[in-house]
């Protein structure tokens, strides 16, 4: 009286040799560089990350992974970046690697030749890039842009407020969406042109992040900083998917991290002479989190492989939908299952739950992506 009525169908996950190597290296790197005490110390710091660790990552070539060799990178793909971001997420290691990688992809997809030649080698070499995509309306659709740019001769004069720009303060370059003549456009802003008063630190739910709002009013940049208008729409669309992919990687890692601390507690804490991990209500919940994580990781590595194919959009949205909800649940249960200790700031569970809010509510939450999956899969 048992038979699986749903056959496992073969389906394609590609996984390169480089991915395998990077995954292994990134796992031990993240464990070494980001024990939880370090993560907590960095929360108290100004920049939120360790410059030395960043330098090591640059030296390992991680900032150039998905940048072509001609621009100083190693010519691999974002799929390889996924294998770094996942272990980093597990250890809550916060760095500008994701934003810099995404910025490089935007440049590759819609930058002018001059922009690419100028910026990409610098990014591969560790120059930090930040992304100014969010505005007051809170919409996840990054083509919904209200900040404006007016071209006059050789310069573009910007106005409006960008929010939730992570690592803006340490960035070399900030890529911003700007509406020019009503059309969503991309522009590179040299951080030197931003007055320090225009940058205001924000209080965000994930304390490992450094987020800023930027008042663009009065900032002018050369018109040559505008990206190729014909390629911008497509680049933004791909950016959305890439962002979702890397957030999914972070969320998968984070889910595993939340599980780690919870399992450790369940295996050591006793009540009424039993390890609390022996109680079914806790045990079964952890199994649910595990199986959901397995699904999320399968979506993640599937999406990493197919992102630039016809299957890409659906694959990425599945990864984002699954991993967002998982991580939130794993973080929520991590707090709950730590009991009274879970309610304290000292318990690490809250760090993961805060991070889960952060990753889930960027670039669309599960409901948002399932709505778009319905169009892709059911119509």
């Amino acid at each position, binding site marked *: 009286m048992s038979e699986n009525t749903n056959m496992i169908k073969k389906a394609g996950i590609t996984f390169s040799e480089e991915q395998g190597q990077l995954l292994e290296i990134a796992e031990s790197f993240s464990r070494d560089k980001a024990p939880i005490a370090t993560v907590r110390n960095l929360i108290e710091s100004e920049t939120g990350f360790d410059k030395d660790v960043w330098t090591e990552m640059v030296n390992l070539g991680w900032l150039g992974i998905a940048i072509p060799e001609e621009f100083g990178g190693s010519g691999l793909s974002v799929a390889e970046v996924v294998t770094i971001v996942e272990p980093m997420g597990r250890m809550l290691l916060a760095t500008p690697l994701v934003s810099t990688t995404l910025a490089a992809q935007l440049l590759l997809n819609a930058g002018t030749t001059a922009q690419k030649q100028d910026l990409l080698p610098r990014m591969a070499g560790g120059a930090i890039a930040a992304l100014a995509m969010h505005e007051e309306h809170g919409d996840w659709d990054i083509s919904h842009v209200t900040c404006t740019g007016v071209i006059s001769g050789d310069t573009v004069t910007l106005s409006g407020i960008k929010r939730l720009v992570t690592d803006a303060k340490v960035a070399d370059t900030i890529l911003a969406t700007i509406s020019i003549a009503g059309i969503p456009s991309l522009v590179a802003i040299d951080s030197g042109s931003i007055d320090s008063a225009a940058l205001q630190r924000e*209080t965000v739910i994930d304390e490992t992040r450094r987020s800023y709002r930027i008042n663009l009013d009065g900032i002018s940049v050369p018109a040559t900083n505008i990206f190729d208008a014909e390629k911008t729409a497509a680049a933004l669309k791909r950016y959305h998917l890439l962002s979702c992919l890397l957030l999914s990687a972070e969320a998968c890692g984070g889910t595993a991290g939340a599980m780690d601390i919870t399992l450790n507690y369940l295996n050591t804490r006793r009540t009424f002479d039993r390890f609390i991990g022996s109680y079914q209500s806790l045990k079964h919940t952890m199994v649910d989190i595990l199986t959901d994580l397995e699904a999320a990781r399968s979506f993640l590595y599937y999406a990493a492989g197919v992102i630039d194919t016809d299957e890409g959009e659906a694959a990425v949205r599945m990864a984002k939908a699954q991993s967002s909800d998982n991580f939130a649940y794993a973080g929520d249960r991590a707090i709950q299952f730590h009991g009274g200790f879970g309610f304290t700031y000292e318990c690490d569970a809250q760090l993961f739950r805060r991070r889960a809010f952060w990753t889930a509510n960027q670039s669309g939450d599960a409901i948002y992506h399932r709505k778009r999956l319905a169009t892709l899969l059911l119509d």
Partner: protein
Amino acid sequence: MSETLPCIEAFKKEVNQWVTKNKPAPPTFLMPQSFMEVGTDEQFEYLREWQEKVYNAGYLGMSWPTEYGGGGMPEIYQDVVNKELVAQNTPFMVNTLGLNWAGPLILNMGSDEQKKAYIKKILSTEEIWCQGFSEPDYGSDLGNAQLKAERDGSEFVLNGSKIWTTLATQAQRMILLARTNTNTESKYDGLTFFLAPMNVDGIEAQPIKKLTGEHGFCQTFFNDARISEDCIIGKEGGGWLVAMKTLMFERGAEGGQAGGHTSMPVTVEEVAELSKRVYRDGKPANQDPMVRDELVKLLMRGKAMSLNGARSKIPALISERPTSIAMSVKMLATELSKSIGDQATSLQGSNSLYFVGDDYAVDGGRWQRTYFQAFSGTIGGGTTQIQKNIIGERVLGLPKK
């Protein structure tokens, strides 16, 4: 307050006018939802002043005896005041523990000296009270309290620690459950209940930083702290009974509280209202079909709780399992609070990434904080998981083992 009782309708009007005129200006900080969230001196002082003002106006402890500082009036007058305080969304009474637990307990079981010493100061905020029940290693298993109180002549020497001692850094008094005898046959018989002073050598309260990053709870350490035997309420060794009585007051299962309202809860209706003024996916959140469905489920949970309350007053409709609704209220209410915080946060699109302290956080980050704060309810006083065991065993009669 006049000697002859005013008529209720006139009194309502009087109270309405007083509250309208005297309620404090909105604070610059995000208002805590209950005394358990008071984390800064600024918050505490704002709330303390308000309670003092209400008491001085004669609107607190109205049905408590006049000889101890109360108003000596029928409860209905306090009810009128309570309703008006809630209706006008005034701050809650910060000395919650004194007004709702310690005060009724002392009036019920305390000696005349104790009543004289404590009751009025509870009302006037001259003495803030905290509670010392839970201990770090025993969670809410009160019967296992280990804090030692050894008799030395007419004094007791306290050693150990208590956790979740809300407002302990502000408090002058603590209701304290301690072990005065470690050799009793039943562990319950070794417990004694004290009305302990906090300003004593060897008692030190240390704030606990909550997961929200705010303060509001403490751990209180006792190192050879000496208190007088006069602090005992009830009998030496009879602390368990007193503790159970106190919990009855806490849960509102027994009346006698001083009045005023004690928390500013979040409601499902507020989330529905929020959904109209935050945007996600390019539209007001309340226009997204999936969000709508989630909100309806949330509204139904809120409505079901209030209807359960109404139904529990109709014996014929709870006859089969009379304790079912009452025993699940805590679990359902606290889980609902968490869902409220979670859903209200998720409504906000990328603006949900802000937190308390950011100028641009929706409603000052109230919803994010509500979510995290709600764990105090789903964990404290017996976790949701423990509640389910209890309900399964006591209401459904399922076997423990």
